[in-house]
């Protein structure tokens, strides 16, 4: 059986329905590593490269939202109009791998793999993104918090293709930061996205829990301690970082230790909340 190459979403969902359990291939930056190292031997592959619906993004000015197709590569988020609309996503996209990886990798891959270290996932979480899933003749919308259910586990059904995500465009400051062992080509040791959206502060953390985490206590503390102009005093920022550390749930693994991650993610949160004010 060859690799199936659908050229429309309806053809892709039909192929998936006809080939239960087929492996969906987007940019390949996760899947091919597993295949190259013999961790996975796919039998049936549906390559989504030629499905135009997945490779587009669009702005809905009335709703104040942007839809990003699951196969839009990160390089299109790093700069240009999308980067203006969702700056935290641009910052996250720029930290993904290398230029070669950013030309191939996409949000659909991050969601499909659902690693807690997926660089775009804290942004989706902080902005309460909606994940759109398509199957034959039907679509389903899932809040990203319900989509990511655990380490490398999501709530996609076997017959569903990730169509894309809808995010609110920025209406307050936002930013993303990540700690790794070097500046390029690195999987995060800890990451965080901060956004002030509709006046309410949100913080989401990557690589410090079984999946991406929000920090309700820290968010509540900050919403009660924001100055009228949205600025944050040094003391409030420090306490915010401490609460974020407390709400993180890191583990020791080959990439770092729980103790370091807990500390680092608090520092990231403290910096992000103030970095936003200065910009």
């Amino acid at each position, binding site marked *: *059986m060859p690799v199936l190459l659908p050229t429309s979403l309806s053809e892709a969902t039909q192929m998936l329905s006809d080939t239960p359990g087929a492996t969906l291939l987007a940019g390949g930056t996760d899947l091919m590593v597993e295949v*190259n190292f013999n961790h996975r031997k796919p039998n049936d*592959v549906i390559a989504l490269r030629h499905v135009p619906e997945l490779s587009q993004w669009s702005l809905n000015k009335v709703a104040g939202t942007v839809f990003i197709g699951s196969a839009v590569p990160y390089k299109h988020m790093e700069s240009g109009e999308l980067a203006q609309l969702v700056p935290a996503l641009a910052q996250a996209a720029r930290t993904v791998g290398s230029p070669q990886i950013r030309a191939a990798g996409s949000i659909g891959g991050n969601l499909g793999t659902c690693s807690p270290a997926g660089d775009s996932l804290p942004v989706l979480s902080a902005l309460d993104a909606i994940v759109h899933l398509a199957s034959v003749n039907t679509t389903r919308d899932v809040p990203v918090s319900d989509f990511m259910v655990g380490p490398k586990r999501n709530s996609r059904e076997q017959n569903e293709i990730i169509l894309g995500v809808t995010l609110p465009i920025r209406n307050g400051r936002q930013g993303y930061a990540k700690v790794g062992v070097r500046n390029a080509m690195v999987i995060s040791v800890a990451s965080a996205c901060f956004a002030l959206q509709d006046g309410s502060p949100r913080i989401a953390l990557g690589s410090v829990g079984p999946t991406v985490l929000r920090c309700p206590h820290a968010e509540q503390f900050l919403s009660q301690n924001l100055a009228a102009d949205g600025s944050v005093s040094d003391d409030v920022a420090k306490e915010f970082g401490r609460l974020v550390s407390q709400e993180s749930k890191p583990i020791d693994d080959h990439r770092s230790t729980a103790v370091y991650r807990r500390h680092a993610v608090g520092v990231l949160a403290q910096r992000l909340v103030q970095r936003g004010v200065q910009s």
Partner: protein
Amino acid sequence: MSSAEFYSLTVNGVEHQVADAWIGESLLYVLRERLGLPGAKGACEQGECGSCTVFVNGESVCSCLVMAASAVNCEIATVEGLNSDGTLTDVQEAFITEGAVQCGFCTPGLVMAVHHLLDQNHSPSELEVKEALSGNICRCTGYGRIFAAVDAVIASRNGVES
């Protein structure tokens, strides 16, 4: 394990038939082992080192992370096809004259990455050059001679005496 049966790839403008391949073979493997194009090098097999960099539809990507059978109907370009007459490009010449080649293993990938950068951006800043080459690892040169080669190409293309 299923076979991808039979498919064709367009590499450097030439159509190649690939028969009896396994579905999971990477483009890097197919280029090197089935099509006799060993310019792209295999090292990490996980997109970390950039030594397998090729262009797919004009995008600079790691060929180890492209499933070959998914790249049908795509324009694939490798280092072998940079100059169709077999002569060296200005980037390759500059790598030689500036001493940017030591063991040479990373060179084809870096040459592709430099061509890709300079095709998009005729006068990149130092930071833009470093970021564009951040996915290509060289363990010999310390990168100094590579950046010197890039600077020489930029100067030459912009008509500046180097």
